[in-house]
């Protein structure tokens, strides 16, 4: 738990994590009712990663995300109400209902998009980081990607490119142990437990942290981002975590040990751990956190109600937004 985090910081970080959890848990419930369309991948359980990293970022900093993007969006400041409407495919959604869960983006917030293509993010963020570097505005690019995605060629190429061009870029590996039903032990037998070892071979600093420990992520990310802002080049940050739901909604999850999620929820929940540590250290009060919980609950409820009530996109939207001019 770092001195540099003020009470305000702590409460804001907790709120973000709670927003993600509440949002995802609610989407899970709504999806089960059959009211939500498409493929939906939930981020519950991994909140400390997105928030631990994004708490260091401002709107000029860019992130790119994955198919499991809701958490990154919320952490980067995308409006949760618009996100819910987007997932419902409504006109009021962040992308006017044309993108959906896998394509939420908000460039003004520095959020370059969730992405349906595994491994698409790293090159895009390399470009963002190159823009940062050329503009000399001290901004950075952060790419989030999974253990499965870490095997995609785009990711390796981008690591090398970031080293070659000394880009202000952070590679945040969310190692949740699975790519769909495939264990990371199979897909990335790097010879150790840590995929970060592979990044070190590319000539960049690489660290592995407990991704369920907000403070560990926050600290490591802070160091990497600071270095990048100062022209020190890219860093690889591996965060070990776990997703609480299936790969996507509808996944029977027979590939997981029976009590894996139950145990994690009970003993290794990033929100619970954060709360316990912060309260114990006397930095925040339990009641303050509970107040946030209530607030967020109401916010998500409002988001769902508004999304349900919102109109579908106007039919004319089918043909617009393909080109700026054509």
């Amino acid at each position, binding site marked *: 738990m770092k001195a540099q985090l003020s009470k305000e910081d702590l409460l804001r970080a907790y709120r973000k994590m709670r927003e993600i959890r509440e949002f995802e848990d609610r989407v899970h419930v709504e999806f089960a009712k059959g009211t939500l*369309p*498409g*493929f939906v991948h939930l981020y519950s359980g991994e909140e400390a990663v997105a928030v631990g990293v994004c708490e260091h970022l401002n709107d000029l900093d860019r992130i790119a995300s994955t198919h499991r993007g809701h958490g990154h969006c919320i952490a980067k400041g995308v409006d949760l109400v618009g996100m819910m409407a987007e997932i419902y*495919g*409504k006109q009021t959604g962040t*992308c006017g*209902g*044309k*993108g*959906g869960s*896998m*394509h939420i983006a908000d460039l003004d917030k520095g959020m370059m998009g969730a*992405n*349906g*293509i*595994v*491994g698409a993010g790293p090159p895009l963020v390399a470009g963002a980081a190159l823009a940062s570097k050329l503009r000399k505005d001290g901004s950075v690019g952060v790419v989030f990607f999974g253990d*499965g*995605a870490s*095997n*995609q*060629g*785009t990711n390796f190429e981008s690591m090398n490119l970031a080293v070659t061009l000394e880009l202000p870029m952070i590679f945040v590996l969310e190692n949740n142990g699975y*790519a*769909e*039903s*495939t*264990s*990371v*032990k*199979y*897909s*990335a037998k790097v010879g150790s437990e840590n995929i970060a070892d592979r990044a070190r071979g590319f000539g960049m600093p690489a660290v592995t942290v407990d991704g369920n420990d907000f403070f560990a992520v926050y600290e490591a990310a802070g160091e990497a981002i600071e270095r990048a802002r100062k022209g020190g080049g890219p860093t690889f940050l591996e965060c070990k975590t776990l997703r609480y739901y299936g790969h996507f909604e509808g996944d*029977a999850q*027979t*590939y*997981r*040990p029976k009590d894996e999620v139950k145990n994690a929820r009970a003993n290794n929940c990033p929100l619970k751990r954060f709360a316990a540590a912060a309260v114990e250290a006397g930095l925040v009060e339990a009641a303050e956190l509970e107040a946030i919980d209530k607030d967020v609950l109401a916010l998500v409820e409002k988001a769902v109600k508004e999304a349900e009530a919102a109109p*579908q*996109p106007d*039919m004319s*939207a*089918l*043909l617009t937004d*393909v080109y700026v001019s054509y």
Partner: protein
Amino acid sequence: MARKIMFKDAINEAICLEMARDESVILLGLDVAGAAGTDQERDAWGGVLGVTKGIYPKFPDRVIDTPISESAYIGAAVGASACGMRAIGELMFSDFLGVCFDQLYNQAAKFRYMFGGKAVTPVTIRTMIGAGFSAAAQHSQSPYSMFAHVPGLKSIIPSNPYDAKGLLAACIQDDDPCVFFEHKALYTMKGEVPEEHYTIPLGKANVVQEGKDVTIVALARMVQVATQAAKALAKEGIECTIIDPRTISPLDKDTIFSSVEKTGRLVVVDEDNDRCGFATDIVGMVAQDLFRSLKAAPQMVTPPFVPVPFAANLEAEYIPNAAKVQAAVRKTLE
């Protein structure tokens, strides 16, 4: 042949039969078995929509889960096939072609020609196409025209369970690189499928129904849309021939041409846009080769030139429907 099974089970059956018949047949892809590296039972997924479920237990050595590295494993399917295997590589969604296209475009497709006829690369790529699932712009495309454009590749697009089984078996047995496109909306379609092994020749269209007034050419799910349209039109006394080419490269020009020679009218229905796509391909070749037989302007019923939208209402409007096909047919009769 009373047994009815689903399209996806027909695919599964074809793979199993070929694997049983031929030891060199292997299956490579993401979670094609599932649970690799875990302590739980394998075969946990059978592919993202369960199409290959149950194959791993039968052929554990030959059903191979891979890391998310399409270039490497699709390329490995190509390479293994150039070395005596008959690999089936599963590219989960055809939308992902962009991450591994070189291994098909410049490698598999060109080996035989570049190497003076000495290479044989009997690889089969299975991959999903199609909109209608609110899967948005990166999981709903039907880019077979890009494959059909490439000399050296064959492109196969079944529209029903019977064809799916017979065509996939033919692909696996075929000595050329085949790309087999599976429309995800058809997976649960039921149809009569013989239990025994059979193949359907690549390059032979299926005449779904014959009618004297108009020739409709359609693939995959659009065959249903065309059929629906034809039913409605029949009530007005308009008789349609519906041709399902089933494979667009090779293309059964003869069947299409001889129908257009009879009807003099052509409508092509496609789920992909028309710019350098399948619809213009058919219309273009008919216009060149059968101009004198045409009684009216050939018509294309295709989506607008936009990415596939997410919102359900927009997506429904994006996909060609029977009403639009009916209108196009009527236009040829004006």
